[in-house]
């Protein structure tokens, strides 16, 4: 029986060590998250400094490198912020991040990437890693059971990352994209088409279609999470919400009917929430020549194309027209 007692003790010891290490190290800023953190900080500053009423595009890196807030600002005549960061953050965390910066009168445009709608309602792996390294308060705000769930479903890889963040600090890491290329509107401008990169072009060339059948089957989870967050934000501020589709590569395989099903569900959801949808999915699906390094990242030509299309759609909205007049009057 002694063997079993010690075996169980080992099991328990493992659990206690695991939990203690993570709780001790929560909030230790790891180098793997530094690029995200810097982008996030810049975007927060932009949100703080940009006057209201304004248009805020929320989403992942598909917004960061897919929406030209500078172009929209120019064409619509309303201060516009690109708050795209990373699609690895789940919808709940993306919505949480804009919460404290919203002011009455703002217009928030959801342009989440397709993959965001697939996420389960619990924290995504990317969110968890970031939050454990950089947003301790968000982690500790979660119910205790959720915290324990996060800790015990972290997996050894995540555990090592957190441990490495504490044990090997200040490692110079390569940023995915240079932060100095983020302009005053929050757009990442590294995606110039006049500087082609063979590796990036190859990635785009080899990129195949996404599985929309899978997305249709799973999008309810993402939409449910989003619905809860919309209610939270509506309770807090007088803001208007708009939704749009993300930019991605067009494939003829998308004509098999699943994309239409996705659109039906998407539009039905936002209609019920009384949120207008800007454009259709295919409006923002472009040939590969408009993409930079992934199926969600446009090059500067693509950004221009999408931003002009978005500006046109925004100008059809009555509230945006009022904002436009407001800013026109103010400037005159």
């Amino acid at each position, binding site marked *: *029986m*002694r*063997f*079993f*007692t*010690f*075996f*169980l*003790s*080992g*099991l*328990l*010891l*493992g*659990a206690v060590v*695991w939990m203690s290490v993570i709780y001790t190290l929560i909030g230790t800023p790891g180098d793997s998250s530094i690029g995200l953190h810097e982008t996030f900080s810049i975007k927060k500053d932009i949100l703080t400094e940009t006057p209201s009423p304004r248009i805020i595009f929320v989403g992942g890196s598909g917004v960061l490198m897919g929406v030209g807030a500078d172009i929209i600002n120019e064409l619509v005549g309303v201060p516009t912020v690109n708050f795209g960061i990373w699609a690895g953050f789940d919808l709940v965390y993306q919505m949480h991040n804009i919460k404290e910066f919203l002011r009455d009168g703002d217009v928030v445009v959801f342009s989440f990437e397709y993959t965001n709608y697939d996420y389960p309602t619990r924290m995504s792996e990317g969110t968890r890693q970031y939050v454990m390294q950089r947003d301790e308060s968000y982690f500790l705000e979660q119910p205790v059971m959720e915290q324990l769930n996060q800790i*015990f*479903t*972290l*997996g*050894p*890889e*995540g*555990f090592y990352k957190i441990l490495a963040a504490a044990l090997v600090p200040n490692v110079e890491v*390569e940023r995915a994209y240079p932060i100095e290329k983020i302009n005053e509107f929050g757009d990442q401008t590294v995606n110039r088409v006049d500087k082609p990169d*063979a*590796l990036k072009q*190859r*990635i785009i060339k080899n990129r195949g279609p996404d599985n929309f059948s899978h997305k249709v089957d799973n999008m309810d989870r993402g939409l449910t999470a989003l619905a809860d967050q919309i209610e939270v934000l509506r309770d807090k501020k007088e803001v208007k919400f708009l939704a749009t589709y993300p930019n991605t590569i067009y494939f003829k395989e998308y004509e098999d009917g699943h994309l239409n099903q996705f659109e039906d569900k998407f539009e039905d959801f936002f209609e019920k929430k009384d949120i207008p949808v800007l454009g259709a999915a295919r409006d923002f699906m472009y040939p590969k020549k408009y993409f930079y390094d992934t199926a969600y990242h446009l090059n500067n030509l693509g950004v221009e194309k999408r931003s002009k299309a978005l500006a046109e759609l925004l100008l059809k909205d009555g509230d945006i027209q009022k904002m436009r007049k407001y800013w026109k009057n103010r400037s005159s």
Partner: protein
Amino acid sequence: MLFNSIEFIAFFLPFVLVAYFALQKYAPVKFAIGFLVFSSLVFYGWWKPVYLLLLIFSLLVNFFLSQTILNLNQRQTDRHKALAKWTMIGGVVLNLGLIGYFKYTDFLIDTLNQLSGANVGFLDLILPLGISFFTFQQVAYLVDTYRGITTEHRFSYYCLFVTFFPQLIAGPIVHHSSVMPQFERESTFRFDINNLSVGLFIFSIGLAKKVLLADSISDFSTPIFGAVDRGESVTTVEAWAGALAYSLQLYFDFSGYSDMAIGLGMMFGIRLPVNFNSPYKSINIIEFWRRWHMTLSQFLRDYVYIPLGGNRKGTLSRYNNLMITMLVGGLWHGAGWNFIIWGGLHGFYLICNHGWQNASKKLPTVCNVFRFRPVSIFITFIAVVLAWVFFRAETFSGAGVMLTAMLGVEGVSFPVALEVTLNQMGKHDLISLLNSFGVVISPDPSIIRTKDWFSSGVPLIGVLLFVAFFMPNSLDMLRKSNLIQGPDWIISGSVLNGTKGRAMALATGVVFFVSLMTMMTTKQSEFLYFNF
């Protein structure tokens, strides 16, 4: 149901163990055996209930045939002996027909289509799990019954011998002589905390091998074999990295499964045969096959190689028999030319090995270098890795691309990502040095393009190679610590409950916890040998 699944570890196994030992304590032993057979059928049916019918059919027919042979053998007349022989042959043909139908029909159709230009449609049959294993076990039983090696056994014992869930799906290929005598002893079914403890230890080690090692390295082999099967080219470095990664994945996957099966058997008081004994430490291919999938090697030796004549009819005949045996072994693993080539390659290796052994007796000085153990182990390992390429690649052309790159037939090249990493590390001289040796940088963006390959993949391959070559395996650990002794693995209670046993228990608990954490957060993966 997979051994590395939560439903197995948290529900199925504890329930079956508790119920089995409760039945064994409070009811006659036959109820406990019956329950174990029933549980094994549930375990099997969990995957696809309809194939339970196949398993039960195979079980009933083979038991009936073996009883018939036994009865005919007892009559001792020539007519009855002939009848017994034909019953045995009929049984073997039936078993092989069954496995042939499910496993080889589409392969046969494909081959005929290619040869004749016909376009016969495939049957697209799903291979029943474990059919290769339970068929071979029963073929051996039938043949041995005819040979008069087996005695009369109870139906319940026979059912347990075939269906016992730890070995049902991916082996070991249990020979009746290794378990039937255990079933005859009532003590086998008696609850023994020592068995349970050691079984749990071995099971935990196996689980860790599968979940922590094999599954981790699979991320690094799959993309490279996927690329060559799609017709993409790979650099020399990538090809070796992919082949090494797969060699280690298969090693730890199979080793892990074998440990888990033995551990589970032990929990129920049943000693299953060792199937895996650090094969990469082999000094030649002959030894490799004594250490890799040992029960299959024994089966092929006893039921293919020796009946073909073995080494009794001269050297040439021996080599011929070796080749046929290894081709059968290759075909057993899968219906495809790549498996046949893999078997043929191992047949060739074995012939070379036997030939070399004969020749080296006459050339002692030349052979000295190969008697240096590390050199022998290295050569054997490289030969095995090269052969695994055929085993893993899904297409013949894919295997060709891999081998061409590995052998540097079209020049030695390394991926551009390696150059980037070496530059970042400031190792410019190393790049120049490689270039001066004619090593070129592939202009194509490589598969190994992420830093993960260098920060995780390469170190992981290094760690796994170290474990495979220098660490003791689970049974060695138990033997070295004197926890088990002798061929019957007699457990030393004093060691188990002593300081050493307690330390092992504590460490096993921690390892088990980490394995559980990994299982809960990663995609569940099947054992590679489930495909065979």
